[in-house]
């Protein structure tokens, strides 16, 4: 390395050391403390925490519930996602672009917003749908959202997006010649789809299904708002309950169980993803062959349209109507029950919600900015250098997002409880940074890969320093990637609930926490007004990011 200029050598390695140190302190250290604490009781090595949780039947019940919910939602969501992906990518359906936009829309909102939208639609006696059914003389609890079935439905309607994204990406990339060969040898359309296409995209489906499973077992908002009322308890909600008692030992032990389940699923998923690269993705963009639906074209279109309306549009209508109703029990179609009062009070009057909005805006803007800057550095090290340990950096930065947020939050509590950070807004900023770091890193890695290395080499050959090359060549080309990264972090952090509910300082709730608390208190009008504000901001951000990246505005995998 003697031929390297000195400034380049120094700066790159300083950045490298900083990146490693930050990652070790913010990601590796809390996870280490979590595992370590689970084996410590009163400062001594002990298996007492585990003995206690494994000797109580509830532990098995919560673990079983978590697994059952995870598996069932994964099956339902994968069936929906795969069918939808095939229809949207491989048939001659009209308005495909609109349909695929709507199909990913549920994913743009925080999960609990979907849950509260469905609560307002399908709660017994008071839900809009039940009120309509009651008008036709049916019982007021015909549809009851507070049941296991309700939980399954709300989760499936959100989490099908994983398999939809992985499957449609794979369908767009597989070599159509194989299918054409099958069709030419006389196979019928459905048989081709079943025998050839399905087999080719199977690894992508499996990968999407495992991501769905991890997302479902990690989710807090939906099981907390719907599962608790249905008396269906899962590990995330019970970690939160144990933490509220407060029984930190129990919360830690439950976290370890969830961590192990998620880690196994993640390991299998990563292995599969690696193999899948060699089997289905040719790397070239190919024009996929399109199956003609013939007389089924319009009925299929109608079914898909109705489905995406149910999953994407109706919940949004539910939130919007409720936000503008004087009382949620009033008739939403009667203009005399409409009001702007809820929005006004949430934005300017209610001390909890005004602080929450301020806090969340501050947190999401700062974490988006910090992550984008840090992500750019890390991504550069990963893509454009051959420094030792860069794949380790890549892996470490992706860990906190892949693991359940509740577990990450408990790990952060354990690691930082004795520091002045605890119970301040700064621990939330740290948590958001840790958890959403991979959004920035992955997005910018993707953008950097598209910049040809020869450009930099040219600049460097002309005598530009590393810093100069970065500033004049790389950054301008990277601009859209940076903006995308910023928005992709801003969107989920604005309404974040899972991590915030455990870490928020009592006098600084976030929007997610405030909405959740308002729902729990039965103060629905304010909760819907907050959810409405978040929805509007997030939709705008989603549209902007789609414009910029030209791809689906969600970081799929």
């Amino acid at each position: 390395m003697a031929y390297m200029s000195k400034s380049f050598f120094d700066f790159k390695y300083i950045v490298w050391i900083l990146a490693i140190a930050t990652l070790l302190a913010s990601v590796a250290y809390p996870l280490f403390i979590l595992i370590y604490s689970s084996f410590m009781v009163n400062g001594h090595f002990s298996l007492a925490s585990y003995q206690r949780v494994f000797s109580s039947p509830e532990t098995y019940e919560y673990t079983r519930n978590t697994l059952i919910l995870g598996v069932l939602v994964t099956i339902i969501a994968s069936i929906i996602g795969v069918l939808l992906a095939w229809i949207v990518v491989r048939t001659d359906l009209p308005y495909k672009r609109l349909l695929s936009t709507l199909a990913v829309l549920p994913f743009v909102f925080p999960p609990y917003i979907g849950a509260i939208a469905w609560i307002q639609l399908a709660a017994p006696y008071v839900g809009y749908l039940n009120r309509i059914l009651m008008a036709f003389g049916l019982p007021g609890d015909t549809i009851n959202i507070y049941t296991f079935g309700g939980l399954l439905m709300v989760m499936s309607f959100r989490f099908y997006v994983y398999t939809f994204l992985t499957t449609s990406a794979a369908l767009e990339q597989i070599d159509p010649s194989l299918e054409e060969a099958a069709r030419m040898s006389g196979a019928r359309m459905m048989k081709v789809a079943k025998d050839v296409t399905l087999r080719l995209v199977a690894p992508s489906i499996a990968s999407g299904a495992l991501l769905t499973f991890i997302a479902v077992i990690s989710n807090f908002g939906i099981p907390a708002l719907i599962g608790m009322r249905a008396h269906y308890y899962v590990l995330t909600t019970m970690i939160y309950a144990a933490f509220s008692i407060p029984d930190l030992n129990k919360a830690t032990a439950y976290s370890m169980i969830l961590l192990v389940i998620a880690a196994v699923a993640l390991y299998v998923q990563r292995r599969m993803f690696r193999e899948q690269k060699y089997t289905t993705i040719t790397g070239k963009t190919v024009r996929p062959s399109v199956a003609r639906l013939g007389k089924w074209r319009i009925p299929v279109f109608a079914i898909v349209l109705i489905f995406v309306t149910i999953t994407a549009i109706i919940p949004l209508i539910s939130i919007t109507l409720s936000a503008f109703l004087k009382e949620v029990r009033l008739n939403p179609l009667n203009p005399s029950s409409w009001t702007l009062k809820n929005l006004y009070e949430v934005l300017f009057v209610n001390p909890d919600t005004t602080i929450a909005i301020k806090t969340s805006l501050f947190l999401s803007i700062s974490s988006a900015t910090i992550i984008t800057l840090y992500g750019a550095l890390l991504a550069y090290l990963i893509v454009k250098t051959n420094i030792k340990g860069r794949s380790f950096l890549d892996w470490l930065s992706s860990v906190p997002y892949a693991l359940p947020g509740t577990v990450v939050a408990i790990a952060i509590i354990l690691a930082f409880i004795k520091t002045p950070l605890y119970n301040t807004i700064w621990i939330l900023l740290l948590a958001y940074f840790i958890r959403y770091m991979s959004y920035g890193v992955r997005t910018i890695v993707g953008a950097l890969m598209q910049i040809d290395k020869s450009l930099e080499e040219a600049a460097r050959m002309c005598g530009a320093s590393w810093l100069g090359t970065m500033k004049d060549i790389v950054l301008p080309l990277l601009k859209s990637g940076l903006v995308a990264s910023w928005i992709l972090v801003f969107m989920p952090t604005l309404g974040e609930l899972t991590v915030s509910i455990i870490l928020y300082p009592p006098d600084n709730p976030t929007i997610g926490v405030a909405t959740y608390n308002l729902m729990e208190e039965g103060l629905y009008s304010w909760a819907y007004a907050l959810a409405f504000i978040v929805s509007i901001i997030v939709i705008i951000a989603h549209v902007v990011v789609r414009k910029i990246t030209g791809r689906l505005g969600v970081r799929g995998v």
Partner: protein
Amino acid sequence: MNKLGVVAIIVVIAIIIAAAAYYYYSTQQSKTQKTVTIHLYTSMPTNIATQLIQMFEKKYPNIHVELYRSGTSKVLAKLQAEIESGHVVCDIIWVADPSGIVQLKDKGYLLKFTPNDADRILYKDPDGYWYAGRIIVPVIAWNTQILKSNHPTSWLDLASPQYKATLPSPWNKASTWAAIPNPLYSGAATVVAYVLSEKYGWKYFEEIKNNGVTVVKSNSAVLNGIINKEYPVGVTLDYMVRQHKANGDPVDYVFPKDAVILIPSPIAILKTTPHPDAAKTFVNFILSKEVQEWLSQQGFIPARSDVKLPAGVPALNTLNVVQINWDQVAKNLENVRTQFQNIMMK
């Protein structure tokens, strides 16, 4: 890099600095002017606590009160965490029920003191460590638009299928027709669970569960559910119903005839307080006739014998009040919560 990029980055950084500065300023500004700051941890409703603090700071301009408000369990948990960390911020604690305060007293964390007019305070610790700052009563409430007659009158009605059958359709066949608050969050709910499990045994809770009584988070959640017509009946706190009724909401309540549970909401000073005089001044202020009268006007049952009860509340000695041994409640706290959870939340 082009100019636009530079400008964009500067703007973003400026926004962050401005946001951080604004945030810092808005949280700090109130702390700078006053001479002494005391920290009040309470489960009193936010608007009431805020108004009390405003009244206090107007009267004692050199004492600033910082408020932390949450449910009783959460308030006690926060204090417990502070005690364990060795850095107690809380100076005054004022929660819904005495069980947690009794535990604090037994562990020697409270400051003994005698307020002015101590003999006029209806409920207090015999050793002088805590005093009732108000009295709360768990009551049975209902939606008056749904239940026009034949409202429940006793705890036993909640467990009775015969009573449920008298409800108007569709509630007589509904899977859920009543709600009670969760002891994990509400101190008053813990006392209710303790008293009723002593009086009727834990089978009472199995019966109400099988009869269609569900558990929601807090007393105010129960009440909002009644008003929103999620269920017609629920167990909540007396003053909340009075306040909502006064606002014209369709809700009314009874003191259950088989057991009225009067819960003194204790206020106490932490031994670790660096400002014992300011803390005593605040507690004296809360227990004063002036403030207790104001609380009574807001619908709370006052803690002093020389203050009139809120409109519509009968003299307390005419009610079927159960005697409660707070030491026993404190000892059984964990057990009550666990039993309740095992029965009601399955």
